[in-house]
């Protein structure tokens, strides 16, 4: 594994390039999925947004792995913070739920992504959806800002996950909650896949074991922790073949996929227990 700073730089470069080229990719990039076609990408990790209110095709780069907004219990007037907001896809769906009286703040590590998201917000005429270029390990928001935190397939990209979870706790109001979609592991990845930074930017090599992931949230102080949705992810043979021998690919595909997309929910207690 490369050092944290190098990994973050690589993640930034990759997603900035995606923003500039206005293409799909990222969590399982198109070249490794064998196609730049949106549909084939969807079948690997993304869920279908097209039926959701507030959906804007231009803001959907196909980079998510779940539908956190569907499970996030967002109420009218809420302040929602989206961590790793990309081109703004989940922010706009969240904005539909908060209504004009709410607020949606999207934070993304890539300047190009926030610029793209801002243009999308302008096109939609949403003046209560704002974007900030920031790091999830050092969130530039005041404590107790958010009623709801959402994030879609981003935390696995961040090297220091415990710090992000502590930051989520800090920015949530007491009694607030999060719903986060992410990639976790339920078994071991072959060594070569773990080490590949390219797989990292594609969300797989940076993923934690599921139990460890959930323990991190508990350690950060969250309660009512639950998994709202769980779905195994199958990597295409062509992608694996770039890192593994044909025999290894066959062996990998015969077992249950150790890569799982989860949507996790938890609450910040109304009053601190200590």
């Amino acid at each position, binding site marked *: 594994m490369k050092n944290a*700073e190098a990994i*973050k*730089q690589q993640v*930034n470069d990759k997603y900035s390039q995606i923003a500039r080229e206005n293409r799909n990719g990222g969590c399982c990039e198109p070249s490794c999925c064998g196609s730049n076609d949106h549909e084939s990408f969807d079948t690997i990790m993304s869920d279908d947004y097209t039926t959701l209110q507030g959906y804007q095709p231009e803001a959907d780069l196909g980079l998510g792995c779940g539908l956190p907004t569907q499970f996030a219990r967002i109420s009218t007037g809420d302040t929602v913070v989206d961590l790793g907001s990309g081109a703004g896809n989940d922010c706009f769906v969240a904005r539909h739920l908060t209504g004009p009286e709410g607020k949606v*703040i999207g934070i993304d*590590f890539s*300047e190009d992504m*926030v*610029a793209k998201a*801002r243009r999308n917000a302008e096109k939609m005429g949403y*003046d*209560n959806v*704002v*974007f*900030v*270029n*920031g*790091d999830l*390990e*050092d*969130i*530039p*928001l*005041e*404590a107790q*800002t958010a009623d709801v935190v959402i994030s879609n397939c981003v935390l696995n990209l961040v090297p220091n996950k415990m710090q992000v979870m502590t930051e989520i706790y800090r920015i949530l109001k007491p009694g607030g909650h999060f719903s986060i979609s992410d990639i976790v592991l339920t078994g071991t990845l072959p060594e070569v896949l773990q080490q590949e930074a390219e797989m990292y930017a594609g969300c797989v090599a940076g993923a934690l074991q599921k139990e460890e992931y959930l323990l991190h949230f508990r350690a950060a102080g969250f309660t009512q922790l639950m998994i709202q949705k769980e779905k195994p992810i199958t990597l295409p043979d062509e992608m694996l073949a770039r890192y593994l021998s044909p025999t290894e690919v066959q062996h990998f595909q015969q077992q249950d996929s150790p890569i799982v997309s989860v949507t996790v929910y938890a609450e910040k207690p109304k009053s601190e227990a200590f």
Partner: protein
Amino acid sequence: MKKSLLQKLCCPIDKNDLQHRVFKEDEKGEIIEGLLTCPACGRYYPIIYGLPIMTPDEYREKPLEEPVLKKWGLNLKKENPEKFFLDH
């Protein structure tokens, strides 16, 4: 960005409240260009094209920010070039 966002932003590093200056607004009173500074650590965070740039030092791009700062009549501190501090 809307001015109401200012009260929700803090220094990403030490979480202190920020001071702000506005250099350009649009017709709705939203900040298009401006500067956020942390009175505690002295770091600055520019608002460019309505977007606050608030990533930690090691991910900021000085060559991109310097011309914008110059335009605003601001200069980076010479004696501490690796940090994002301004010469007042």
